[in-house]
């Protein structure tokens, strides 16, 4: 992330905004909602509170305009520049302008720009963030069409805004008026906009405390799933991802939504078939295939497509053996073997884990193949196993990969 020169910020926690006019592309209520959701994104990770006002001067004035509109940066017709906003300050400071020559929508479609996404980015500027060069961050300057249901800020955005304002205050200290969760439904938009009357009461948006990422070196740290991806290793827990890469020394902290915005948090299992550049994610009785950032079409699919009986409702862990082209699925105290070449479950399975892997007596939370060994995770421990000899080599803490 980066900030503007001299890092200007609002010197107060109550910031006002006003919507000066509306785009005819959307229902006014949808514009109001998109802007309110965009503010909520930032208030959820800072002590800031945003209040909408309907007249007079607000800290952040929001407007739609085309071409030259009285500031230093004229808009350029459809495409190109979509919007811009000014760093915190008096006058034009904090204001956000949206190019009326664009087609604004409440959806993520190919025929328009999602107002919530663009507004959330611009309001980042209004609060003092400049552009980030981290791909996937909201403050990355390029518009990236993503599904905005359950949209969450990238860790880089959170780090940036909290460097300026700090984290949210403790819930006890918060006002009790909470912004209701509003998740838009991705559906066909209505054609004709209908005017809505402004409400007389100002709308106050207050933050809700986001879940905390567990500490890397917490000895009790457990994982939902682990997989390799193009030479890197990804550890999943809830919405969080720890990324260990041979290309950088530090462990990178991300969220699932920053890589795959439309996937649901809390994977049960994951594994990579490196020869196909494909990672499969499992959640309950469904699975998804991704290639890098791209989610393959036709997913999710039911896990029964892989050959599981209908009695299996979820997978605990999965790991692909690159040398044998077999994938092992762990469910309770049993495991299955799937032949990736024939795309079918092998005969003779399921078998008891403890029968074939001596010393592994617990269900497996996550599994990983690395450096010729298999690592089976249970709670805060992991077991290093030599698969050829099916022999337990040693036991370690689950977070031994994080240089603690």
């Amino acid at each position, binding site marked *: 992330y980066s900030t503007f020169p001299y890092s200007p910020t609002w010197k107060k926690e109550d910031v006002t905004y006003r919507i000066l006019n509306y785009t005819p592309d959307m229902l006014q209520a949808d514009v109001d909602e998109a802007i309110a959701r965009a503010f909520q994104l930032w208030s959820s990770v800072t002590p800031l509170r945003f209040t909408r006002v309907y007249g007079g001067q607000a800290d952040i004035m929001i407007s739609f305009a085309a071409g030259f509109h009285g500031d230093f940066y004229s808009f350029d017709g459809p495409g190109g520049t979509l919007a811009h906003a000014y760093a915190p300050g008096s006058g034009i400071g904090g204001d956000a302008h949206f190019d009326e020559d664009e087609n604004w929508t409440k959806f993520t479609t190919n025929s328009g720009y999602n107002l919530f996404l663009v507004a959330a980015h611009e309001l980042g500027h209004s609060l003092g963030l*400049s552009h980030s060069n981290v791909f996937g961050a909201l403050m990355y300057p390029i518009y990236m069409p993503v599904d905005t249901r359950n949209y969450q800020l990238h860790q880089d955005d959170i780090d940036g805004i909290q460097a300026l304002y700090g984290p949210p205050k403790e819930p006890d200290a918060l006002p009790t008026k909470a912004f209701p969760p509003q998740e838009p439904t991705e559906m066909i938009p209505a054609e004709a906009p209908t005017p809505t009357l402004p409400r007389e009461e100002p709308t106050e948006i207050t933050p809700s405390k986001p879940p905390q990422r567990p500490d890397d070196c917490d000895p009790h740290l457990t994982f939902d799933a682990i997989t390799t991806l193009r030479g890197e290793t990804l550890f999943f827990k809830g919405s969080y991802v720890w990324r260990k890469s041979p290309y950088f020394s530090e462990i990178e902290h991300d969220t699932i939504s920053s890589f795959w915005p439309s996937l649901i948090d809390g994977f049960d299992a994951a594994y990579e078939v490196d020869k196909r550049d494909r990672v499969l994610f499992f959640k309950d009785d469904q699975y998804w295939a991704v290639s890098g950032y791209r989610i393959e079409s036709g997913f999710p699919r039911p896990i029964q497509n892989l050959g599981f009986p209908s009695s299996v409702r979820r997978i605990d862990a999965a790991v692909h053996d690159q040398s044998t082209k077999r994938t092992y699925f762990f469910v309770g105290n049993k495991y299955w073997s799937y032949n990736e070449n024939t795309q079918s479950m092998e005969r003779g399975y399921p078998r008891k884990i403890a029968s074939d892997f001596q010393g592994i007596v617990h269900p497996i939370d996550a599994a990983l193949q690395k450096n010729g060994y298999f690592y089976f995770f249970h709670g805060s421990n992991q077991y290093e196993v030599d698969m050829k000899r099916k022999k337990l080599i040693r036991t370690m803490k689950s977070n031994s990969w994080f240089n603690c």
Partner: protein
Amino acid sequence: FPVAPEKEQKDMQLAKKYLENFYDFKEEKHSLFKAKDLSRMADKIREMQSFFGLEMTGELNQKTLDMMKQPRCGIPDVRS
């Protein structure tokens, strides 16, 4: 295949505008030293390529042009 001269001209104009808007590039309109201008432009292209994680060639290659054509925020990427 080589790029058609007309397209090359258009791409160059687009790149100059982009670098002026977002990378604080200023073309010397009446400069006698075009080579100096091109060198400064190559520096700015390199800066832009670095920001977006592209290969830093300083040349206006296809990947760089494609990135310049993406819809984006109007705030500059570098401080002027």
